[in-house]
């Protein structure tokens, strides 16, 4: 966000920006060509066939071949645009596996970020250059939309459900962050900055870190709510396959294991009571904390109370960070 000098085209500061611009310029070129063609024909016909002119007007019949040309003609161009855009859209929607995880909580008229190191920021996000960053976002009230024009990325932030967006900055600098979905009185003031720094500067900036990593805060919450009393701490659960029609886990210490063991559960396929399996991603973990009976794990009694109202969105994100970290000590990562 340089000083307010006048520009006609946004800076491109992420790996995907230049490719989106390429598709944009192709469409602009297509629009210009067709508009000039139509406008040119109109001007030419207007001059040539004005009422007072004596141009040649021998009668002629409509030629259906011409009609077929402008019905069938556009189709290949449209499909070409579709496939070009679809491949780009897939890339925009698939975050790389090794991307830096940042948690985002949006609420009426501010953005709250939390780095993997636990450092919290409001309305400003510092990120290192040439490192993919994945944002897991949720809203505490209405729909907002995380929009960084310079990175050509945008994703609505919904209440009640995680949405993700990713980008990999490739130019150092400060870039606008806007809220793009109308969210009330100060919608236009819910803006911020994304500061892209070199790797060294980013480490230096992080070093005077005051916050504690989310998994540590998560572990404190895990103990405060005595989750271990049901979920136990048995490390590596092995998937026991079918047994008397119910698929479940082999339990290392029978008896205390009233809830499914959480070590190594993140990203694994969980068999449910009604026979479906679901992957234990952030959305499933969040839903199971707030509405435990929604998707019951096979082989375990539905006795978990709901923690709705007792945990803020930040707490839930910390608990999930803790559950993800469990798998690091316990079993092999998925």
């Amino acid at each position: 966000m340089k000083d307010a000098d006048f520009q006609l085209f946004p800076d491109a500061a992420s790996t995907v920006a230049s490719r989106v611009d390429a598709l944009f310029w192709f469409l602009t070129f297509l629009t210009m060509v067709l508009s000039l063609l139509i406008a040119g024909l109109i001007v030419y016909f207007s001059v040539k066939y004005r009422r007072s002119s004596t141009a040649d007007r021998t009668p002629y019949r409509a030629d259906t071949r011409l009609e077929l040309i402008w019905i069938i003609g556009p189709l290949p161009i449209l499909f070409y645009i579709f496939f070009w855009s679809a491949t780009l859209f897939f890339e925009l929607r698939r975050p790389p596996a090794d991307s830096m995880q940042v948690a985002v909580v949006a609420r009426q008229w501010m953005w709250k970020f939390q780095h993997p190191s636990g450092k919290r920021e409001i309305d400003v996000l510092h990120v290192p250059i040439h490192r993919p960053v994945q944002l897991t976002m949720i809203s505490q009230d209405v729909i907002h939309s995380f929009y960084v024009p310079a990175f050509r990325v945008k994703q609505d932030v919904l209440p009640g459900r995680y949405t993700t967006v990713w980008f990999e900055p490739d130019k150092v600098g400060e870039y606008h962050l806007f809220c793009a979905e109308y969210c009330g009185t100060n919608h236009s003031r819910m803006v911020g900055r994304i500061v892209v720094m070199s790797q060294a500067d980013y480490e230096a900036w992080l070093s005077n870190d005051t916050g504690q990593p989310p998994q540590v805060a998560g572990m404190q919450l895990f103990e405060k709510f005595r989750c271990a009393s049901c979920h136990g701490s048995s490390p590596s659960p092995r998937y026991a396959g079918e047994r008397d029609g119910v698929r479940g886990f082999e339990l290392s210490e029978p008896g205390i294991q009233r809830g499914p063991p959480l070590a190594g559960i993140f990203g694994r396929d969980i068999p449910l009571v009604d026979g479906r399996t679901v992957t234990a991603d952030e959305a499933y973990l969040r839903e199971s904390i707030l509405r435990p009976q929604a998707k019951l794990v096979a082989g375990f009694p539905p006795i978990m109370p709901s923690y709705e109202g007792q945990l803020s969105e930040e707490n839930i994100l910390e608990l999930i960070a803790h559950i993800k970290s469990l798998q690091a000590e316990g079993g092999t990562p998925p």
Partner: protein
Amino acid sequence: MTEHSSPAVEGTPHPSNTRTYVTIYLLLLALLAATVGTAFVHLGPFNLAAALAIAFIKGLLVVLYFMHLRDAPRLTWLVAASSFIWLAILVVGILTDYWARRVFGPE
């Protein structure tokens, strides 16, 4: 209130006589019993299919006989059919999003 009869209004054909209406009515009651009955039998996903099928048959009976679609011009058939087709576009169009979210995950 004196009973005054005058010639039937031509242009609104009414071939169905009372006996047809009563038989359709009894058929509808039978289907009502059927739909309530199938609700007690555990058929898994087919419960919904059965309930909708029976309801569709009952609906068809009401529309064809009670609403005289049977002897109405083809244009009326088109109007009735297109309303249900658009309802299907709405329901199927929206459910594809929810189905795709479940099958292909959050991305």
